[in-house]
């Protein structure tokens, strides 16, 4: 009333940019995060279009060409211990490595968020029961848990993905529970309850939009961990099996060549490092883009 007492001519309805639109704008202005995103996009696209991009067959090699150094003719990044083209194997390897880095985190994001949000919103005994159960898994170091689960389930890609998912559910559930618990006491949640809305409606309309963001940021930071763990499992022979290219596995099989061709042997490790640090930088950028009043 009085706030707008000064007569104004009819105006075009004002529609503000939504929160995610603003986060996107800020993220695009973040040079580091954008560089990381570009690196990830490049590697992902290369992996997806591996049949087109890769110069050679990643599985066929000639022993005569084994362990060529970086910069050799026909093999820009050299060859591995069986004479297969490293560049092609790295490109193809991105498929499995990215799959093993991203899939467990995505699955754990959905399952862990659901568990954490239920525990956080319900509170009381439900919370205690769920969170103490989660704590049991949390008590084991993640590497140990992943190795033990994969070992128990048996080697293989599916089992490795499953055990990594189980490893990531507890930390994500924890984060989801704490942000939900904090949100639950907000006045607007109370106001929603006071309007007669049921728990499901409140979670859908008021909780999800406010908690998924922070959980998502946390989850992206886990992708790097997942990639390293997945490589570890493959390295131990619990994940991907030869001759399929996967960075962790490649690191394992090339380890014998470390004295002969150290630079070639280090390439899969460099890829793991590059991708995981890119995910971390992107996640940091996302975090600061979301850290705004609103």
């Amino acid at each position, binding site marked *: *009333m*009085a*706030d*707008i007492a000064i007569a*104004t001519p*009819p*105006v*075009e*309805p*004002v*529609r*503000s940019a*939504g*929160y995610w639109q603003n986060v996107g704008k800020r993220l695009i202005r973040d040079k580091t995060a954008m560089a990381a995103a570009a690196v990830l996009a490049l590697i992902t696209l290369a992996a997806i279009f591996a049949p087109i991009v890769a110069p050679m067959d990643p599985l066929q090699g000639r022993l005569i060409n084994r362990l060529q150094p970086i910069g050799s003719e026909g093999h820009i990044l050299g060859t591995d211990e069986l004479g297969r083209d490293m560049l092609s194997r790295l490109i193809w390897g991105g498929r499995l490595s990215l799959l093993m880095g991203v899939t467990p985190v995505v699955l754990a994001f959905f399952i862990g968020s659901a568990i954490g949000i239920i525990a956080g919103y319900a509170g009381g005994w439900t919370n205690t029961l769920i969170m103490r159960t989660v704590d049991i898994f949390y008590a084991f170091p993640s590497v140990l848990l992943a190795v033990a689960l994969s070992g128990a389930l048996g080697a293989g890609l599916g089992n490795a993905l499953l055990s990594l998912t189980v490893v990531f559910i507890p930390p994500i559930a924890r984060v989801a529970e704490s942000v939900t618990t904090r949100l639950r006491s*907000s*006045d*607007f949640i*109370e*106001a*929603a*309850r*006071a*309007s*007669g*809305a*049921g728990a499901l*409606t409140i979670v859908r*309309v*008021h909780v999800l*939009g*406010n908690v998924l963001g922070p959980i998502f940021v946390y989850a992206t930071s886990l992708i790097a961990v997942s990639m390293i763990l997945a490589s570890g499992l493959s390295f131990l022979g619990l994940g991907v099996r030869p001759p399929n290219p996967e960075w962790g596995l490649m690191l394992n099989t090339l380890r014998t060549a470390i004295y002969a061709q150290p630079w070639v042997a280090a390439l899969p490790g460099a890829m793991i490092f590059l991708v995981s640090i890119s995910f971390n930088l992107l996640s940091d950028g996302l975090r600061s883009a979301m850290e705004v*009043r*609103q």
Partner: protein
Amino acid sequence: MSTENAILTVRNLRKYFPIKGGILGKTIKNVHAVDGVDLEVFQGETLGVVGESGCGKSTTARLLMQLIEPDEGALYFEGKLVGSPELPLKAFRRQVQMVFQDSYSSLNPRLTIEDNIAFGARVHGTPAREALSRTHDLLTRVGLDPARFAGRYPHELSGGQRQRVNIARALALRPKIIILDEAVSALDKSVEAQVLNLLADLKAEFGLTYVFISHDLNVVRFVSDRVMVMYLGKVAEIGDAEALYATPLHPYSGALLSSMPSMDPDNRTMEPALTGDPPNPIDPPTGCRFHTRCSVVGAVCSQKEPTLTQRAAKHLVACHAHDPASGYVALKAKEAAE
């Protein structure tokens, strides 16, 4: 006050918040937040609620809203027990709405203003189109141009504008009672006056009943028909606003009123009415809870709890000094004689 019909009746409301300790999470102590409150809110009135921190006024508000479960006590709305088949909780909820102190945290930051307001109506099954047009009407009614504000987000508005949005949201379900919990306390004085005027207009227009909780005694006097004074989870005194402000019966009400800063530079306050802080509601004093700070305390006050009794027209007080049967009066007379 149009009629003397109680729209909301509260009987023996009690809420303790446990303080857990030890490894097993056993309850070691209780915060006596609300401890046996009886109350009637009359149709069409504004009931002011005053008291200091820890007196239980905000807990009472949340209990009236059924946002927290009382440990004991019953709530009747228009004579019907809330939560009974006659009046299920969801049906009751749309009758009583609340405006909170913090205008920012009481709106969902991820939703636009119109989505925030329309949420309640959507919950109760109003079609989207109708909910939206009602939202725009309400925005206009609280003085915000829908064209300029409906599509914006809470953080883009000033505190006064946000509180108008909160009022519109509370009105969206067409409630009969609105509980205003320190609803104007965080606003600047010049904006506070605008919102108080708006509240008065809306009350007349929609025939609302207000429960107005505030620490600002001047504002409570101005807006309230009746005033309830609370101290450490109990009602100390309740009566017509003017009568209570003119002649407070409970010594605590008197002390509270004379603690108001003087607005006269030539007649400033010389002595504080009370010394020290209010006691902790975890271990409230025995007997009358005010006896530790009371200037007219008698022997009986630390032993027996006074009951809330009518002592003047529509004026109830819980104080032994006003109870001829309590033994306080006789004892004081004896002391005077000696």
